């Protein structure tokens, strides 16, 4: 069990670090997806441990949610790309202070 | 109901005044209406005074309705002697201030409607504060009074008004919020005791640990010390007074600041007697420092309004000293002092305000020899000043002496140092008077107008009261005494008996001897 959870945590951490270091909004978003996947791994692993399917259901919901989120997220990224011709999150810094 | 009516009348007046048409053409009507309402309030307060039964004392004309049941907050009003005196002060001063403010020039194109409306709002709230017998209600009104003053200073004051208004508000808010913490604590304590209630009568019976009591006391005291203002929390006052219109200053220093000392009497001593006693050495020390410090700082001021503000710091020191000496004499003296100081400071602020308005400067250095062109003003200033330095025969003397005499029985050093204030008071008043009024007439003052009849009419009541109460303070004391006795017995501290009391029979004999 520990290995699954550890893998999941490692992936989660990598995803989180990715959010911090990548500038391309799409890649940042991908990193978030990686974190979601890591979560899913943990859920499925826990489901395996506890012997009930709640974790799997949760993972299933995460996937659905992720799908919807991806649509919305990419739509936002595309629309902002259209405006600025840039997908770098660093370029969105009008709001600050 | 009469207390509610009393508090509501000026509020209603404020509403009416706000609804009246604006513009300079209507200014006189507006002011007249406002004065009318304040006069009506005064009349009502006299009715209250008349209906108050001095013999039985205690809280009278009480009203009690549940307000916020969950919090244990009641809409509970009632007056005892102390509250009554301060209500009377309020209702007397507001018409005076309004009348004296008739010719106030407001900055910008600000309307006189809101100016007088705010004053009336302030009056209503102040009456409520003095009549509240529920800690929550008291707190709410206490804090609410900040708003009218804030607007009065900020909208209608001098060039530094914004700074002064914000400083005033924040400074007082800090105190108020600390008190809020204590109010919350009171709720917790009283709720733990079974039934949450903020009623004064209930709070006096609440069981609390010594530590809790002290903590809560500190919260209340912080608010009151800032409001009063007690050294070293006084620095908002000179700024505020220097920036406010004279009328605002009067209401602020004479009425609203009294809430601080009033609160100490009613809430600190009333609800936390043990903690009050515990804190009294510190408070007395600070009060004595205030007396001397305020006086010394007043001597060094060039701005007349700041000077008056510092004199008030000194006087508030006396009031607080009297309260925390826990003797009936000093406490009754403090209560009377609140009233008297209200009158004398009002006179001082108003007459210097008129002076300043005429000169266009508040700097003492810009005056000189005014007495020659404005003898009446000079006389009024002198009387006001003398009352401020507690000349016997004028009202503040009686109260100041009572405070000192009472304190003396409790703590000789405190009284002795405080008595220094008597000398310093002479200095700050007379130096100012000498610089402003005497000597050759300063250039640029040739056209200086003496007081007009309306101004005299506005100031006369305060002067008459100052002189009258100087010789015959007993009507006030009769009202005050029972309430003070109650407070002192609450604290559990009686008057220290004279160390070698005069044989009563002997005294009787000597008195008899004359007849």
């Amino acid at each position, binding site marked *: 069990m*520990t290995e699954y959870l550890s893998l999941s945590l490692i992936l989660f*951490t*990598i995803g989180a670090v990715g959010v911090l270091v990548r500038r*391309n909004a799409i890649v940042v978003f991908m990193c978030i997806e990686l974190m979601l996947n890591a979560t899913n791994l943990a859920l499925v692993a826990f489901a395996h441990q506890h012997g009930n399917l*709640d974790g799997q*259901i949760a993972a299933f919901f995460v996937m659905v949610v992720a799908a919807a989120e991806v649509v919305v997220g990419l739509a936002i990224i*595309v629309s902002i790309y259209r405006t600025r011709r840039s997908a770098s999150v660093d370029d969105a810094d009008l709001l600050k202070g | 109901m009469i207390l509610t009516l009393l508090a509501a009348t000026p509020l209603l007046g404020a509403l009416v005044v706000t609804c009246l048409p604006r513009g300079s053409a209507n200014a006189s009507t507006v002011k007249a209406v406002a004065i009318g309402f304040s006069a009506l309030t005064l009349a009502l307060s006299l009715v209250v005074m008349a209906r108050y039964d001095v013999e039985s004392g205690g809280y009278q004309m009480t009203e009690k309705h549940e307000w916020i049941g969950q919090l244990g907050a009641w809409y509970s009003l009632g007056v005892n002697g102390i509250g009554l005196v301060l209500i009377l002060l309020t209702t007397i001063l507001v018409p005076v201030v309004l009348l004296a403010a008739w010719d106030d020039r407001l900055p910008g194109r600000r309307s006189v409607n809101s100016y007088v409306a705010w004053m009336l709002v302030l009056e209503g709230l102040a009456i409520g504060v003095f009549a509240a017998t529920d800690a929550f209600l008291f707190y709410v009104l206490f804090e609410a009074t900040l708003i009218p003053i804030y607007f009065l200073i900020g909208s209608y004051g001098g060039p530094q008004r914004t700074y002064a208004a914000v400083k005033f508000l924040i400074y007082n808010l800090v105190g108020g919020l600390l008190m809020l913490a204590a109010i919350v604590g009171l709720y917790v304590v009283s709720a733990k005791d079974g039934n949450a209630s903020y009623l004064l009568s209930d709070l006096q019976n609440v069981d609390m640990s010594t530590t809790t009591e002290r903590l809560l006391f500190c919260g209340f005291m912080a608010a009151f010390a800032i409001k009063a203002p007690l050294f070293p929390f006084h620095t908002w006052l000179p700024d505020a007074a220097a920036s406010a219109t004279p009328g605002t200053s009067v209401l602020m220093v004479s009425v609203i600041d009294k809430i601080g000392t009033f609160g100490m009497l009613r809430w600190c001593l009333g609800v936390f007697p043990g903690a009050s006693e515990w804190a009294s050495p510190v408070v007395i020390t600070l009060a004595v420092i205030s007396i001397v410090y305020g006086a010394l700082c007043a001597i060094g001021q060039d701005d007349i309004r700041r000077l008056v503000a510092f004199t008030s710091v000194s006087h508030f020191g006396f009031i607080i000293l009297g309260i925390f000496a826990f003797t009936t004499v000093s406490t009754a003296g403090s209560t009377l002092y609140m009233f008297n100081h209200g009158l004398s400071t009002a006179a001082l602020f108003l007459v210097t305000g008129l002076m300043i308005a005429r000169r266009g400067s508040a700097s003492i250095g810009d005056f000189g020899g005014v007495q020659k062109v404005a003898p009446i003003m000079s006389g009024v200033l002198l009387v006001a000043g003398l009352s401020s330095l507690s000349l016997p025969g004028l009202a503040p003397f009686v109260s100041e002496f009572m405070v000192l005499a009472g304190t003396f029985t409790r703590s000789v050093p405190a009284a002795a140092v405080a008595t220094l204030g008597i000398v310093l008071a002479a200095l700050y008043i007379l130096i100012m008077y000498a610089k402003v009024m005497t000597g050759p007439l300063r250039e640029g003052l040739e056209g200086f107008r003496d007081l007009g009849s309306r101004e005299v009419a506005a100031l006369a009541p305060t002067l008459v009261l100052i002189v009258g109460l100087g010789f015959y303070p007993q009507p006030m004391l009769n009202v005050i005494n029972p309430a003070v006795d109650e407070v002192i017995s609450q604290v559990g501290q009686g008057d220290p008996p004279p160390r070698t009391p005069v044989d009563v029979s002997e005294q009787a004999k000597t008195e008899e001897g004359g007849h």
Partner: protein
Amino acid sequence: MTAFWTLAPVMVVAALGLLFARKAVHAALCLAVVMISLAVQYAALGAPFLFAVQIIVYTGAIMMLFLFVLMLVGVDTSDSLKETIAGQRLAATVVGLLFGVVAVLAIGQTVTGAVTGLGQANENGNPFGLAELLFGPYVLAFELTSALLITAALGAMVLAHRERLGARASQATLAERRMREYAETGRHPGNPPTPGVYARDNAVDLPARLPDGTSAPDSVSQVLRDRGQVRPAPGAKDPVDPADTTDTGPREVEE
């Protein structure tokens, strides 16, 4: 366990690829690797249904969406690896390491409970078990996902869809306008030549040659022109300077 130990390093490496890949596409592919590996892990953990869904929904749909958008945004966009926010990378590394180490050591390594396994839960087959839950305690969540999906659709529409204003131009008006433009600006009403016409070969990057022997630069796709990948037409009278080609290409098609 074999599957796990085989795939785990792959997944970690692929995940790290997400951090270090210069090109977004590479990152996407790395992510796909992780996802597919995950699917296998699911299968190993007794979640065949999720295995399928992971492949179909995640890798199949979501990743494709990512790639699609990457194409839209520019398939070759690549991050410069130079960090612009001072200290960001260092801080990210430190925090990441701290989080990772703490998490793995304090959480990952401390799980004790016995592994029950899904034998019983999957008695009637994994999908049935899931269905039972889905239509039992999680029915509300399930229904709610519809709201999510509607929102997503609506969002995509709102942000991406440009509604047409006015009626579609008819053939006649279009023709009329073309002729008028020709009269006014000299813009040829006919179709422009396609690349490679009359040229040496018919590659897409070779401009057509007009009857007068000059080359027609606008016959090459705008994308290639932008990239500077237009080949000069051999023997053309005027060597194409890709830099100053102006867009005289196909008219904007009315929506």
